[in-house]
């Protein structure tokens, strides 16, 4: 099994090679995509290959070569658009802070678009509409960054970035969580209170024993 990631229109040659130690009398090798057989196969010494010209997303998918001997052996190639890398875990930010989300891909897409979920509808984040809230910058050809300023509780939710390639689209979802400042502050204050109680106890004890000593 092989994964092949393609971004732009290219010609691809896929070949299946048989191990010469495998003595198969009359090997029958067919190339299939789904259920349809591909006819233009080229045969070499011990390998069978096909040439594919890929110009749009309709030609993407999985292609397999099947060897019919005593048993059926299959090898599959998956052709797909490049996957996007981004943060898997939810991004935790605080109110009035800035959130940064970065999407990265292996090849250069034609465009990047950011979406957010409002209610049940995806909404495109249009920078020009909210210039003081969202900042989209293209850090490099393969990397895009969304910055959300002045966070509020309503900004929490699912965001995703979509990359458009010649051969299709690819996207990645991320979750944003917005906490209020009080959230970690509560345990902190609890601990500080405990510390103060301990300190006062110890100081009182020392003062008491000093007075007793005198």
């Amino acid at each position, binding site marked *: 099994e092989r994964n092949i990631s393609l971004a732009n229109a290219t010609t691809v040659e896929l070949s299946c090679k048989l191990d010469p130690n495998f003595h198969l009398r009359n090997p029958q090798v067919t190339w299939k995509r789904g259920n349809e057989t591909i006819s233009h196969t080229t045969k070499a010494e011990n390998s069978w290959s096909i040439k594919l010209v890929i110009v749009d997303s309709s030609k993407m998918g999985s292609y397999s070569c099947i060897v019919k001997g005593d048993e059926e052996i299959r090898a599959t190639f998956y052709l797909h658009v490049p996957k996007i890398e981004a943060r898997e875990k939810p991004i*935790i930010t605080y109110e009035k802070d800035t959130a940064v989300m970065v999407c990265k891909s292996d090849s250069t897409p034609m465009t990047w678009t950011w979406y957010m979920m409002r209610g049940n509808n995806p909404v495109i984040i249009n920078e020009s509409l909210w210039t003081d809230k969202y900042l989209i910058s293209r850090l490099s050809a393969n990397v895009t960054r969304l910055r959300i300023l002045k966070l509020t509780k309503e900004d929490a939710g699912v965001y995703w970035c979509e990359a458009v390639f010649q051969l299709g689209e690819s996207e990645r979802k991320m979750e944003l969580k917005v906490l209020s400042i009080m*959230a970690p502050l509560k345990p*902190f204050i609890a*601990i500080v209170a405990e510390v103060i109680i*301990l300190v006062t106890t110890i100081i009182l004890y020392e003062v008491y024993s000093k007075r007793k000593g005198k």
Partner: protein
Amino acid sequence: GWAWAVVLHFFLVNVLVMGMLKTFGIFFVAFREEVGGSSEQVSWIGSIMSSLRFLGAPLVSIVCRGLGERPTSLLGAGLVAGGCLVSTQATSVPFLCISMGLLLGLGFSCLYQAAAVMTAKRCRARLGFSNALARSGMGLTFLMAPFTQLLLDFYGWQGTLLIFGGIMLNLVPSSLLLRPISTRHSSAKTQGCESPMAQKDPETPDGGLDGTTDRELHPHKAQELPTTERLLMSHGKDVSDPTNPSALGKLEKPTPDRSSPETATGAKRSNKPLSATKKETPQPLLDLSPLKDPVFFIFTWSFLFSHLAYFVPFFHLVARARTLGMSSMDGSYLISVAGITEMLSQLLSGWVADQNWTKKYHFHVTYLVLSGLTNLLGPLATTFPLLLAYTVAFSVSCGGFMALVLPVLVDLVGVEKLHSYLGFAAFFAGIAAIGGPPLAGWLYDYTQTYACSFLLAGACALLSPLSFCLEPWAQRWKLKRARL
């Protein structure tokens, strides 16, 4: 009595300091993602933090001698908590380097030094066991890792640092437990800690008890007493005669029934060395005398190499397990087995050392040699059971010698000068600690196998006890120099 409070504080220090250092790896990932900066830059924070812990030691020993242990410890706790809190506002890696690396590193070294010396001062008889007990705190640090991860998932790195700052603040009340020793208290305290020995003479009252226990202990430990203390003893004898009447007045618990001069001078003699210490040694704050002392070199040489030998195998144990084809679950299982075995062997070794069957450093040497041999045989371990056996053997010997580091130093130089010795020794050890992991990493890159790091660790572990062979000569040399 209060000695156990000090051990508790040292235990807490170990847990929190070591926990912070070890969980830094988890923060590392969070920092890289959120604050930005390359892997190398972020790891600088961690290395500044852990190296300052050692390198700051001479500076801290000066502060400790100037201010006393308790204020230094409070200062350390304040630095650590403050550093954590300031770091929550961090926006860039250099900022974090200073706020987290510098402040926390200095704070840790303050805390550690003060706690270690205080433990040595408080519990002279059972130093081995109490040191081991406190060090077992390091074993609990493995709990901190999942806890930190949980906090990070809930509150993000800023919230986690805030809460950590609060947890570190807990070191403030525990530092308050480090009550300073005054001369009056110390005679009663040494009594408390040495009571197992003193129980042989239940009839003598308190004042006499000081004298008799001292007289019992000093011939018994005549070999072990460093020359400095013996000098003070003889000095004390000279001083006691002219100040006879004032000394009697100084006795806190006068001997009402036994007014015999014997017990009185005995009690005076126990008080005298302590007050004579105060008169005779108005040591300058920056005490460079350790650098002129051969015993110091012996100790530092061994300390340096044993530290190198200690860290490297742990770093590479999991990686080696992986290269031999074991899953990472097995690898972490090995690490936890190592941690628990080490904890147990520390306690055992501390207890054994306290029984005083032989000089403490003989044990130290034995453990080091064992660990060296284990490491040299380490590359032979290629299956999981063998690797497990290696891990157990290695952690037993490591725990053994780690527990004895402080008692051995105390035996060699005595408690009065402990600060400066420990400070400088830690400084040199810090240099080794900075160089150790990168050196091991370079070895791996060069030889493409982890076997070499184990061989290196074994070689270091065997090199370090060599210096102890020179110890008897060094003591004789010191005596000769003192007599001149």
